[in-house]
């Protein structure tokens, strides 16, 4: 390779890194091409290795600190558990894929799959039985341990309780005697009152002591031994696997689409025979009808699709689509209105109060408003042409576009519109006066002016606004989905919170990373777009 081509490659790479906003990689590239190795190595250390080390340090700190914070829902998950949550969710997705494939298999492939699944099932069932046996043993052992730990505490509690009860009885009989004495005008009232006060304080203290032992007792009961927990998890994992394999068998055998079609066709054939032999008009009619019905059933069954359960990756796809719809709506409103505002001070003055009032409104409020408003447009969502149109599209069809998606998208749009609008207005109004004067001198028409001068020179700011909008939109969307239970990452988080199982906490943190990483990627895409329309070489804000 010639010198110049290497140079070209190097600067090409550097430019790409610069435009995409990954400036930290700049020294790596330069180092690779041998430019000032010492300086670049220092930069690599400072800006790349140090941050990575810092992240690793954070993970380590997380690993150490998390288990120390005990919540009612279990310990705070460590990075390892969050990773396990990722694996589990991915497995759930794979299982759906498998079942879907099984549902659609036919012929030889189906038979082969049946044999394979049966074999797996045999292995797993044996394992499951073994695990269950192990679990039972561990359970008994840990139960015995707990009982052993409880016994002395319980004894102490019983003793204390007995002692306290006797003392309380003694005290109350004393009080009764005193009261009798007072009634007989021989005792002092003060003495009685003191005795009662004294009794109350003592009873309180005794109860406190009892409570302490009781708390200790319940602490012993509420901390299941680690070994038991691990055995339970292992046993459950295998049992779930067995259940999945059984379900797969279902989908390969009786639940298989091909098999169902065959069954329907057989029924039709029988009905046809009945039709041929029927003599009375009513019987003919009946048989003919069942033939037609059988044919219809077969045709319909052949088109059936596997009813998928929403998995994490489906939720991600749906959230991305929703945010895309909402963002598009926001941009479609913000850019033209922003340009108008920038061009005309009166328009700006008119819109300022509206913008200022609605900008700070919480997305939750918008969500509720749109939920009511949008619902009214679609009295019968399933047969509405808009949703039928979306349903027929290749990739989007499977996402289940419904009113919930529309109002989530509307919420995203109305929250994301403001930064884009304000920035566009700013971009347009801060166009160099000279450019506008030149346009005036050249007597350019409105459209020429708009497309040759105004839009190009305000684009960097427009994109800066859109970038903020997308960030806001993504953030709002998760909240909107959680609240409205519209499928998407927000619903995933909310469902996990509601499930309250021992995996839920880890799943929520896992979702937190998924949301963060996707948000990060979206942001990078917007930076890329912003940088590619900028004239100046201004640094991308990271």
């Amino acid at each position, binding site marked *: 390779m010639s010198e110049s081509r290497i140079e070209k490659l190097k600067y090409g790479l550097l430019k790409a890194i610069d435009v995409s906003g990954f400036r930290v990689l700049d020294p790596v590239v330069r180092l690779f091409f041998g430019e000032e190795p010492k300086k670049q190595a220092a930069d690599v250390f400072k800006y790349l290795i140090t941050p990575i080390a810092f992240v690793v340090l954070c993970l380590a700190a997380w690993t150490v600190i998390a288990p120390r914070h005990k919540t009612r829902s279990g310990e705070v998950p460590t990075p390892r558990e969050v990773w396990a949550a990722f694996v589990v969710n991915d497995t759930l997705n794979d299982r759906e894929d498998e079942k879907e494939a099984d549902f659609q298999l036919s012929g030889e492939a189906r038979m082969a799959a049946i044999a394979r699944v049966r074999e797996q099932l045999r292995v797993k069932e044996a394992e499951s039985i073994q695990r269950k046996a192990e679990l039972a043993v561990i359970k008994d052992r840990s139960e015995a341990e707990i009982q052993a730990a409880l016994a002395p505490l319980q004894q102490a509690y019983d003793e204390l309780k007995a002692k306290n009860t006797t003392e309380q009885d003694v005290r109350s009989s004393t009080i009764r005697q005193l009261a009798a004495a007072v009634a007989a005008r021989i005792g002092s009232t003060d003495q009685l009152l003191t005795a009662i006060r004294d009794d109350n304080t003592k009873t309180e203290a005794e109860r406190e002591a009892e409570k302490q032992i009781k708390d200790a007792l*319940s602490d012993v009961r509420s901390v299941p031994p680690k070994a038991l927990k691990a055995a339970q998890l292992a046993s459950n994992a295998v049992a779930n696997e067995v259940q999945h394999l059984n379900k797969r068998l279902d989908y390969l055998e009786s*639940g298989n689409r091909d098999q169902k079609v065959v069954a329907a066709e057989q029924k039709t054939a029988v009905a046809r025979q009945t039709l041929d032999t029927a003599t009375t008009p*009513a019987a003919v009619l009946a048989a003919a009808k069942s033939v037609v019905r059988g044919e219809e059933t077969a045709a319909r069954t052949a088109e059936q699709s596997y*009813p998928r359960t929403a998995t994490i990756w489906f939720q991600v796809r749906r959230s991305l689509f929703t945010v895309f719809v909402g963002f598009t709506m926001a941009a479609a409103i913000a850019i033209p209105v922003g340009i108008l505002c920038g061009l005309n001070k009166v328009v700006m003055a008119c819109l300022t109060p509206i913008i200022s009032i609605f900008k700070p409104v919480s997305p939750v409020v918008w969500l509720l408003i749109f939920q009511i408003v949008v619902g009214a447009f679609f009295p019968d*969502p399933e047969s509405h042409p808009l949703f039928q149109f979306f349903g027929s599209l290749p990739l989007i069809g499977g996402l289940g576009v419904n009113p919930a998606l529309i109002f989530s998208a509307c919420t995203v749009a109305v929250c994301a519109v403001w930064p884009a609008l304000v920035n566009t207005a700013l971009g347009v109004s801060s166009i160099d006066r000279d450019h506008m004067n030149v346009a005036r001198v050249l007597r350019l028409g409105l459209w020429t002016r708009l497309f040759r001068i105004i839009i190009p020179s305000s684009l960097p700011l427009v994109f800066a606004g859109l970038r903020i909008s997308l960030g806001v939109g993504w953030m709002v969307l998760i909240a909107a989905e959680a609240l409205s239970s519209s499928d998407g990452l927000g619903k995933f988080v909310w*469902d996990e919170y509601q499930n309250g199982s021992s995996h839920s906490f880890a799943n929520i943190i896992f979702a937190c990373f998924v949301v963060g990483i996707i948000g990060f990627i979206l942001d990078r895409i917007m930076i890329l777009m912003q940088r590619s329309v900028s004239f100046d070489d201004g640094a991308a804000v990271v």
Partner: protein
Amino acid sequence: MTKVEIRHRLCQVEGYEHRRDICVLMDFDLGAIVPVSFIPLGLRLSAAFHASSTLLLISGCSSPEIPPASTGSAETVVAPAAPDATASISESPGGDVPSTPTPATADRDTADELPPLELEKDELKFGFIKLTDCAPIVVAREKGFFEDEGLQVEVIAQPNWKQLLDNVITGELDGAHMLSGQPIAATIGFGTKAHIITAYTLDLNGNGITVSNAIWDQMVINDSTLDTPTPKHPIPATSLKPIVAEKLSAGEKLQMGMVFPVSTHNYEIRYWLAAAGIHPGMYTSEDIRGFTEAQVELSVTPPPQMPATLESGNISGYCVGEPWNQQAVAKGIGVPVTTNYDIWKNNPEKVFGVTKAWADENPNTHIAVVKALIRAGRWLDETDDDGNLVNRDEACRLLSQPNYVGADFDIIRNSMTGYFYFQKSDKREMPDFNVFFKYHCSYPWYSDGIWFLTQMRRWGQITEARPAEWYHETAKKVYQPEIYLNAAKRLLADGLIDEADVPWSTDGYKPATSDFIDGIEYDAHEPIRYLNSHAIGNKDPEDS
């Protein structure tokens, strides 16, 4: 199909040209002219019979001979349901006669002549709330009972009862796991108004009342008999009363949670409190939160959030379905003091609800769904020879999937397999804690509906006094046993259920019972008398 078309086609069929009476009947709007109850029974019977034979005929598969109008067995079964039959025909607006399976088909002798179901819709969406009593729906989906009926069903978790109901009303969902009170309240217009019906009761019992550890400690101090690892049950709210009084004198009201204003839980916790003389508050036309005169304030929290709300201290106790009571024990944040089995033995809990409009549009699909649910209920309650529930473990495994209830398998299993943890130290056998099929429980009993109506009146959700007939009529509007019986008959014909599984010839009223925590007798035939037998709550003049 319009009435005219039906008549036209009817007259083309050989041997029926002369049956003008059927044709006339179809145009003669009986229900619009005289209240159904005034029509002589004989006429009602024959009307129902004619209507059914008409429809059987139209669906093309009935035998050409019409059996005589009043055979003994047909009469007994048809009688209670007959008014609905006439109503459903006379009400049909604009001519579209719903080809509903009519009550007359409840005649078991014609079982093998039932026309096969032509599904109007085969891809359905059902909603549910994350509670173990959604089990029949989940089981029907996962065990392939829906698929056996040719239905592809999606089962979708809903965030709360209100949204679930709204989604059913807007058509986003085809049907849902509902609180028994929901179809009734929606039909009479308390809350969102919509005519919702039910043809299947999902389960009995299954709820518990949990109080926070602090309240439990005080209850133990108030009643020293509770101070053992296994206190005697049922625990009444009497030991809670001093706590409530103390709070009141400090100017506070004890806060407790329930899941929905018309939920079983709301009525149960109110019943439990009121049985011990604690006033749980009345609903009035202005006070829709139900706080009027309240000594304990009950607020709405969605079931899955109950433990978290209790833990955060916003409420001191709650009444909720499983697994959220067992969850409180497992997390050590509260103590279940009583279950609704102790408040009312074998009380109805959840139903499968659809809108009337949906049921009219998809009568056959509805039957197919109920068929699958009956099989699922039966599967859930299947026992071996020793009376052990055999399928519950598998059901728990299904429910613990994250897209269904999603709680830990072991927690769900606690109550579902016939045990209940009241405290970590107090595990009791409760074989009937979750009943899905036994005791003919999945049949939609009118008497269940009437109990909920009396409670709505008792606590002021129904703002004015109503006559006893109104209770019976409303229950009949919501509960649709004909659909259940039709589905059951088909299952019986296929050999999938036993004759004894279904109360074929009931009038829809369970016998009177006094299995309540306070021992007051409930006889659904006399709703007003029952209403007036409670110390706390609205009372109505008996003869109005």
